[in-house]
């Protein structure tokens, strides 16, 4: 039997197969846990999915080889989008058959939330079978760094320049020079990411966390997903050293990972001069200080110093779009909520595991405003905007601003779709934001976050769409609705 496929289709199928193979391998620990814990209900579905993924991936990768050297952007977007959608689809199976009482839509929500690092669950996540909790965390981890990135790093057979492909999944401005061999870079990135996760696991063990919980925490927290397995993300009861470890690694996970590469190359000066990192750092500090001042005014009985520490931890949880609750922020004065809301929109740095609009874009947008005022005064000026002291093309400025606008539009339209469910306007806006920023925690419900049990199936599906849109930075999902996506370059 011969299937006639053109090179592009071969390429897409090849990458998808490879991703499935990796996914299949990652499922093995889950099956192990299931077998050891005698969780009969999820053993069979997990093994089935693992088998299908491994077989399909193995066969697909060897049968469909592509000898493509140049990949068009359209094909890259297709690859990323289809890989993500298919992986989310196949992860639905273990959740659906493994948890009694889950409908298909519930399972889709659970799977999407896991892959997009959103940190929302349908029911109490801690009550799930252990194998499925591990599955959630593994999907968090793969989704955080990006499954395509992991695939590219692990497969030696990819000879093409993977930058185009990786950037469709892991978008945002980089600070790496274009001439650097990206192939070694993404290997290093995945290495750094795995290293951080391992380090966090060991530190958590040293801080006397039980091993399984430490493993789940390390996997989920490195990918800034939140701590769904601990009391639905309410981590107030944890000991202080554990809280500090979690905070540090959530922060590291939300920093632009190209800075770590610069660090490896010992270019520490460049790292410190990076305006995104500086903005990010000062933003955390100033927000924490302001919130502490508000708390000090409204609740004078609290000790300022220890409160500042707690506020910093909570702020990092939100800026990194992890969304776990680490202090009693439900009692904060209402004005603080506005800060948190803003911080969730801005989100973490570009090229990090966090979500949101991304700091780099916000810096550009904030510079655009005085710049456009300046242009009104000096219409004929040739001055351009600068970023990290380098001039930016106007095209670039427009793109960054356009994304900010697109993000706001998607957020508002998302709230419109969610408002079909009979929730209040405040909840609709907050849930839309929690989904599109991949935080998962609605600031309207800070004492018991992250449960989607009461929503209608339609709302749950809309939430899934918003999560995927937020994780892939909207454009890839939007492209499906355009004819150009399905047409080759030649026919446009």
């Amino acid at each position: 039997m011969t299937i006639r496929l053109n090179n592009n289709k071969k390429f897409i199928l090849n990458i998808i197969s490879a991703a499935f193979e990796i996914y299949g391998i990652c499922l093995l620990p889950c099956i192990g846990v299931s077998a050891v814990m005698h969780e009969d209900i999820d053993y069979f579905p997990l093994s089935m999915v693992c088998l299908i993924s491994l077989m399909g991936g193995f066969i697909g990768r060897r049968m469909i080889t592509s000898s493509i050297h140049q990949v068009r952007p359209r094909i890259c977007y297709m690859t990323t989008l289809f890989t993500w959608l298919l992986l989310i689809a196949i992860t639905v199976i273990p959740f659906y058959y493994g948890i009694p009482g889950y409908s298909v839509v519930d399972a889709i929500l659970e799977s999407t939330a896991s892959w997009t690092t959103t940190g929302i669950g349908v029911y109490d996540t801690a009550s799930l079978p252990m194998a499925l909790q591990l599955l959630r965390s593994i999907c968090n981890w793969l989704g955080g760094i990006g499954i395509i990135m992991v695939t590219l790093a692990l497969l030696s057979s990819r000879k093409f320049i993977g930058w185009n492909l990786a950037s469709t999944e892991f978008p945002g401005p980089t600070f790496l020079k274009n001439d650097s061999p990206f192939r070694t870079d993404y290997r290093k990135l995945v290495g750094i990411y795995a290293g951080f996760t391992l380090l966090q696991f060991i530190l958590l063990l040293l801080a006397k966390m039980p091993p399984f919980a430490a493993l789940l925490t390390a996997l989920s927290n490195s990918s800034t997903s939140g701590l769904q397995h601990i009391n639905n993300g309410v981590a107030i009861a944890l000991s202080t050293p554990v809280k500090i470890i979690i905070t540090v690694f959530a922060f590291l996970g939300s920093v632009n990972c190209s800075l770590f590469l610069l660090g490896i190359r010992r270019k520490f000066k460049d790292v410190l001069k990076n305006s995104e990192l500086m903005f990010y750092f000062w933003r955390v500090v100033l927000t924490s200080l302001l919130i502490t001042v508000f708390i000090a005014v409204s609740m004078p009985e609290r000790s300022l110093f220890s409160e500042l520490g707690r506020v910093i931890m909570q702020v990092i949880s939100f800026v990194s779009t992890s969304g776990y609750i680490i202090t009693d922020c439900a009692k904060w004065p209402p004005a603080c909520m506005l800060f948190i809301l803003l911080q969730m929109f801005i989100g973490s740095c570009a090229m990090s595991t966090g979500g949101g609009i991304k700091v780099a874009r916000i810096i550009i947008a904030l510079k655009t405003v005085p710049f456009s005022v300046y242009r009104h005064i000096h219409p004929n000026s040739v001055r351009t905007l600068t970023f990290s002291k380098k001039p930016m093309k106007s095209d670039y400025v427009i793109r960054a601003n356009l994304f900010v606008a697109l993000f706001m539009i998607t957020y508002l339209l998302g709230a419109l779709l969610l408002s079909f469910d009979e929730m209040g306007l405040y909840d609709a806006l907050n849930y839309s934001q929690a989904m599109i920023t991949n935080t998962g925690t609605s600031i309207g419900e800070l004492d018991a976050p992250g449960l989607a049990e009461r929503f209608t199936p339609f709302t749950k599906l809309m939430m899934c769409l918003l999560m995927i849109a937020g994780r892939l930075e909207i454009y890839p999902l939007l492209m499906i609705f355009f004819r150009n996506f399905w047409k080759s370059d030649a026919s446009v």
Partner: protein
Amino acid sequence: MAARRVINFFGQFMMLLGAFMILPLITALIYDEDSSVRAFSLTILLCVLPGLAVRVFYKASLDELSLRPRDSYFIVTTSWLIASVIGSIPYMLTGSITNFFEAFFETCSGFTTTGATIVNDVEALPRAVLMWRSLTQWLGGMGIIVLFVALMPRFGIKARNIAQAETPGPTVTKVTSRFTGTAQRLYIVYIVLTVLLMIMLLTGGLNFYDSLNHALTTMATGGFSTYNDSIGHFHNNYISWIITIFMFIAGTNFELFFIAMHGHVARAFKNEEFLFYSAIVLIATVSVSVCLVLQGGYEDVWQAFTDSAFQITTIVSTTGYATTNFDLWPTFCQMVLLLLMITGASSSSTAGGVKMVRVLVLLKMIKREIRVKLHDNIVNDVKLDGRKLLPETFTYMIGFVTMYFITLILGTFLVSVTGQGNLITNLTAVLSCISNVGPGLDNVGPICTYDFYNGFSKLVLSLVMIAGRLELSTFFILFSRFFWQPNRV
């Protein structure tokens, strides 16, 4: 800066304001309101005397340094502030509103055609004051400076620059060979429509006073009413529909009327912004009426459609009347209204908000961005009405949208800082002020007022209204260091 000319301008501008106060003065005489007669005659004197003094003793000669484009921003913003301060004097002199910040808020809300009010019982105010309140909206609707330019063409100001700083929307095209002509024609259309609306309202059974007031505030998309329960007071679907239609007209680009008057009716209807605006209004109306029937407890489909059409048009044209309390509507309807508050209506109309043309161009840019992302070597221009848009235009448009959201966030923060109101109240209050709508949701909903805010919040909201009315950049330019040091680049 050509100080002499600027001061002369302000002098004449005050005289113009004084002249318009004759209308409420006449109202006061007709209805025999003594305090109002005193208040308005005193205010007229306050306006005219300095104006005359400047004219006589400090007259600018023609060989004086002429005004530069940059000065127009200063003139426009300052004129609006002056107008708002002077306009609040009658409120205080009649004792209708005693606190200055509140009177200032009310006047800003008038001139910027916002229609947000702090008066809990409107019907208790003197009729002359209500007349003045409606008149401020009518003057602000098309732009007071544009009116000035239309009336006094030979002042030596580049009228076009001024109009660009004041007229809503990114595009002011020259319809006639001289801009003054355009300004005059804009006002002719405006006056004709106002008179037409007044006659229609009279035939609907309203008395002369109510018709005049509502015609003034409808055409300006202002939204002040002489009754506490706004248009809902009349319980009359004919009135609702007349006002709906005229609000829709007030939200369309007024230049289209010229194009139509010159015989190009088909071209006017093919205008992309107009089509987009109509489509949005239609879709919103239909979906909201369906939602009202399904979730909102409406039994009568026609009534649901009437209410929804009225409320959608009043919000999209940033008028802000109310026939029902839409704060009690289902969340979906509220969300639609919230979105329309942001978009606003067409450019070169009397409406506020981001403006349909900007939303349209934004969507086109997103579409182009997707095409370019998919096919990286494609040539793809964004066109509007068949004309290619320059990258320069993009920068301004996108800069405006960003500025709009930043102002919204900053305003919400400043209003929230004093701990009043919840987030939805504060957010919709600022949104409503920046888009010049009037009512928001929750505590500033259609049956509530802005009275509960403290002086600081009221001042912030007043300034946000002016900033929103002057399309943000005209207002924010005054805060740029480059503006005050003209030679610095």
